[in-house]
């Protein structure tokens, strides 16, 4: 609860209930405040507790199913239900030795590893002139760069499918890479533009006044300023590409990638322990990656207090 808010409410109560003003004054010599009546205290407690319960229920709604999935991936039974039939890790062994699954995972990792650096480079190239240079058509260029974030992936996916067919380009993981770059680098542009817009250009101008060359300005002034945004972009681009289902589904051709593998496996059978196992593994890796990255960013930004960390988080993901 916000302390200032609480203070004002207590003052109100003090005015409204003078009969309880006889309560002992605070020991530290601050302004003596009346003790709020019981009803208000109960209500405030409920307010706070209610909010917490609400937040917990919400987080359980988001993460609960995945946690249960992880727990039951160790269950020695082919159905996902009670009673518990014993602990086993055999599903993990089976999942990791499934050749289709391994191929899909390998394809996905290759695609994301190519998409992430390409998106960061293209996105940064686009962000610099949009925020730092003045030229005709700047508004139009900015709109075009934002458009892939607004048009649904389904529409982009099917238009790409028709386009590649008409231009006689065979569908494979190569076409997946280029289409992932198309939808991912505008996100990088948004993140890096926001980061560039926050720093005014006087730093760059004074570097030029002090005799720095263009390259030196980029290397010693610009890059350090936008480094957190670049790191955030890289991680986001990687996970966007790895998790993308809609576009991959249409332009993947015969090369299966992980999300499409899960989808098509589930369409044919409803209950597959190896899907539980591999889903758990992938989720754990994803969480660990993002958490490590977050520690890196807050450490680099020198954020110590919780407030600073919150701001760093919001800045790097805005």
């Amino acid at each position, binding site marked *: 609860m*916000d302390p*200032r*808010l609480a203070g*004002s409410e207590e003052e*109100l109560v003090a005015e409204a209930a003078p009969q309880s003003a006889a309560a002992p004054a605070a020991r530290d010599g601050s302004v003596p405040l009346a003790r709020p009546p019981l009803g208000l205290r109960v209500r405030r407690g409920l307010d706070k507790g209610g909010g917490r319960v609400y*937040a917990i229920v*919400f*987080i359980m709604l*988001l*993460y609960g*199913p*995945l946690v*249960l*999935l992880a727990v039951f991936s160790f269950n020695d039974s082919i*159905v*996902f*239900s*009670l009673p518990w039939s014993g602990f086993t890790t055999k599903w993990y062994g089976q999942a990791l030795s499934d050749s289709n699954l391994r191929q899909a995972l390998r394809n996905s990792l290759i695609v994301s590893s190519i998409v992430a650096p390409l998106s960061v480079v*293209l*996105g940064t190239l*686009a962000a610099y*002139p949009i925020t730092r*240079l003045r*030229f005709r058509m*700047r508004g139009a*260029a900015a709109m*075009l*760069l934002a*458009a*892939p974030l*607004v048009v*649904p*992936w*389904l529409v982009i996916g*099917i*238009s790409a*499918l028709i*386009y590649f067919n008409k231009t006689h380009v065979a569908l494979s993981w190569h076409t997946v890479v*280029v289409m992932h770059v198309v939808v991912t680098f505008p996100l990088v542009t948004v993140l890096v533009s926001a980061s560039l817009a926050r720093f005014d250009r006087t730093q760059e101008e004074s570097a030029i006044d002090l005799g720095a060359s263009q390259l030196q300005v980029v290397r010693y002034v610009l890059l350090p300023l936008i480094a957190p945004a670049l790191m955030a972009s890289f*991680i986001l681009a990687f*996970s966007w590409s790895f998790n993308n*289902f*809609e576009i991959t*589904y*249409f332009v993947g051709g015969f090369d299966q990638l*992980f999300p499409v593998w*899960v989808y098509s496996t589930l369409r044919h059978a*409803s*209950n597959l322990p190896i899907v*539980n196992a591999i*889903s758990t593994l992938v989720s754990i890796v994803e*969480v660990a990656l*993002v*958490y490590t990255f977050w520690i890196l960013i807050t450490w680099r930004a020198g954020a110590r207090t*919780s407030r600073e*960390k*919150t701001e760093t*988080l*919001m800045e790097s*993901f805005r």
Partner: protein
Amino acid sequence: MVSLAPAAPQGRQLRARAVKKLRPVAFLISPIGVLLLLFVAPLIILVIMSFRYESLYGFQTGWTLDNFRLLFTDPIYRGVAKDTIIIASTAMICQLLIAFPLSYFIAFKAGRWELPLLLLLVLVDELNPIVRIYAWRMLLGREGLINDFLMWTGLVDAPLDWLLFTKFSVILVLSTSWVNYCAIPIYASMKAINPSLFEAATDLGAGWFTRWRRILLPLAAPGVFVAVILVYIPLFTDFATPGLVGGTSSYMLGNTVADLMVAIGDWGGGAALSLLLLTAMAGISVLAYFLTKLNQLD
């Protein structure tokens, strides 16, 4: 920088001007080129495709409006469109009802829990959406954990059938998949509100309802607008969720497009339907924009 202009008598100035003029081009040529080649060109082909008629193996081709006419006259499409609007709108309303109080709690009341809660909200976006949908399917099924639990407590005698492959399951899973996108912009707009406004309102005798109605809602409206744009539009084109947890009553327009394209191979119909969806979405954006403007004037 590479030399871009020939060395003329006043070469230095001229060259500097040319460099300045060409600098945006040098930066933008590759990103804009990629978009023109792989985003704009496919969309143009999509528009052309939706007005084309092509018989099997392409023996007969021509211009036609049949793709659109079929979409408007066929009662099956009308039913699917109705279901889609019902499902997407219900999910959107559920998400706003969940996300608004949650954002308020995180922004003003959570204290030291603010950071962990935010982190959890951001983190969930990094998890694979297909895996998240699949996890719900495992819970909701006839032999799923929820039914097991209900039977075990004796609340129900027979497993509930309506938990999976119904509108309910699609709305539930859609809501939980997108609610973080809904909450983050609302939180950001609430965070920008000066808390002393609430104090002032309290001092002037406003109750919590008045505080929410007159301060919180108008000032958080831009965040709500962003949330609606960010979430409502993708809800219409989602086909993985209804594909995995939906049944015949929750077959959505996204599935129709996907099936027309992949299973049936009617590319003209698929292109026409997705073009219609795109137009409807532009309409929604404009509408949401004006609604927010109205609210701010008030």
